[in-house]
């Protein structure tokens, strides 16, 4: 990951969402992007130039554009048409973003398009985040990384965020997924947690 001083940046064409530039690099704001927050709060898997990424919950393409600066190709899945309009604009200007309008909980919709990836990133506001990630593991190569951004308030508002965090970890581990890092994203994001795993064998 590229840092300038304490600031996380990425190398690419700027002006995607009015981000600040620093020495010709795009500043990656941890308050806007949970992935940036993970790289500042914890460690997270290194993004490298030959990586293929499946990104679930791409939204407006803000984080997607930064990931695309680092890796070879991003398959960006988004369900809602409104943010998809923005994502399409990002894709028109970046050769390595593949916008896909589909529901991440039914991966068969985009199975004919997505190749085997090195990193599966999930940031969807759904109550069954762990189940969605498990369904998408078929795209992840053995030994690949998995990042799950847990929006505890979207899972169940009545439960304690700590409880949901633990429950999700238990579900993942019960499927034989190795959790290598799990951290809260405070102070950048409230009640959001990041879980980084590796897939040692197919689920």
């Amino acid at each position, binding site marked *: 990951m590229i840092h300038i001083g304490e600031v996380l940046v990425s190398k690419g064409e700027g002006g995607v969402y009015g981000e600040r530039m620093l020495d010709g690099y795009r500043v990656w704001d941890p308050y806007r992007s949970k992935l940036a927050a993970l790289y500042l709060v914890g460690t997270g898997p290194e993004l490298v130039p030959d990586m293929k990424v499946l990104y679930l919950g791409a939204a407006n393409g803000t984080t997607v554009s930064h990931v695309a600066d680092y890796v070879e*190709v991003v398959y960006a899945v988004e369900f809602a*048409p409104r943010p*998809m*309009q923005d*994502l*399409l604009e990002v*894709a*028109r200007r970046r*050769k*390595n*973003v*593949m*916008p*896909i*309008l589909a529901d991440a909980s039914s*991966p*068969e919709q*985009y*199975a*004919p*398009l*997505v*190749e*085997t990836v090195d990193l599966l990133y999930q940031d969807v506001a759904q109550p069954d985040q762990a189940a969605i990630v498990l*369904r998408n593991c*078929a*795209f992840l190569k053995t030994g690949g990384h998995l990042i799950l951004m847990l929006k505890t308030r979207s899972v169940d508002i009545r439960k304690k965020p700590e409880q949901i965090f633990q429950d999700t970890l238990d579900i993942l581990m019960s499927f034989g997924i190795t959790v290598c890092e799990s951290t809260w994203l405070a102070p950048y994001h409230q009640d959001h947690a990041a879980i980084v795993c590796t897939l040692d064998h197919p689920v």
Partner: protein
Amino acid sequence: MQSCWFGDVDNGKCIPFSGDAAAYARRVREIRTSMDALVPPDWKIAAACGICRDRAEYLSLLQKVCIAGSEQAVREQYAAKDVELLQMVRTLDEMDTVINVLSERVADWYQIRHPSFSRKYRRTPAHMLVKSVSERGGGGALGKVATGITGLSDTRTALAKEVSARACEVMPNTSALIGGLVAARLLSHAGGLKALSRLPASTIQVIGARTALFMHIRTRAPAPKHGIIFQHRRVHNAPREVRGKVARVLAGKLAIAARLDFYRGSVVPEFIEKAQARIDLAGTVQGDDKQ
């Protein structure tokens, strides 16, 4: 056999698909993949297939397909009849809020200008006051703001008519039961006609009474009898003791009407006739519940 976007792969043999990006995108939507024996597409097979020469060309072609497919999907979703109505009714409700807030502000401002003025004993609603301020307010900013609010109110009235007319078109059965405006508000809260048609009647009954509902769940507060449907005259004009019953019966018929609207899309007179009679019956104090 495994089908992926660029062709069908069978025992290492590949039958390429050809066409423009839109044709590939259409093909992707028609492919039914099983996730159990998933073999993700591989650019090397595509190259062997003659689709592309190298990885860069594979990605560039794939991106064209992805963009074409997503653009088409967005267009289709926006073409649905209820999407624009949703924006219209939300604009309408937000305009109401804005008009109310600004009117109160102008009334306050006017009182400062006229220290001896008081609204007590006058029964002048804020919007009437705004009208008179805009007529006699002079050329100052106060008069201009008041004129602006009056203009906004006229736009709001026109928009309300349009919403009502559009709702009768998009959801004829629901609109026939509770009127276009309230029907459109139900639609806006549900998030779309499909979502509304899948709601149970008990939810439709209390849509828009979220605070009361959660207060009921959390504490011992009584359950809300009605949400948005209270705006319908047969609910708010009903005698207090049967109002809950009318709301319940109406919500039940609305749930059916929404399903007719979504799946059939046309008006069903025999249903509406029977439903109206049933709702009217519930409104009478002696109305038999079982009929």
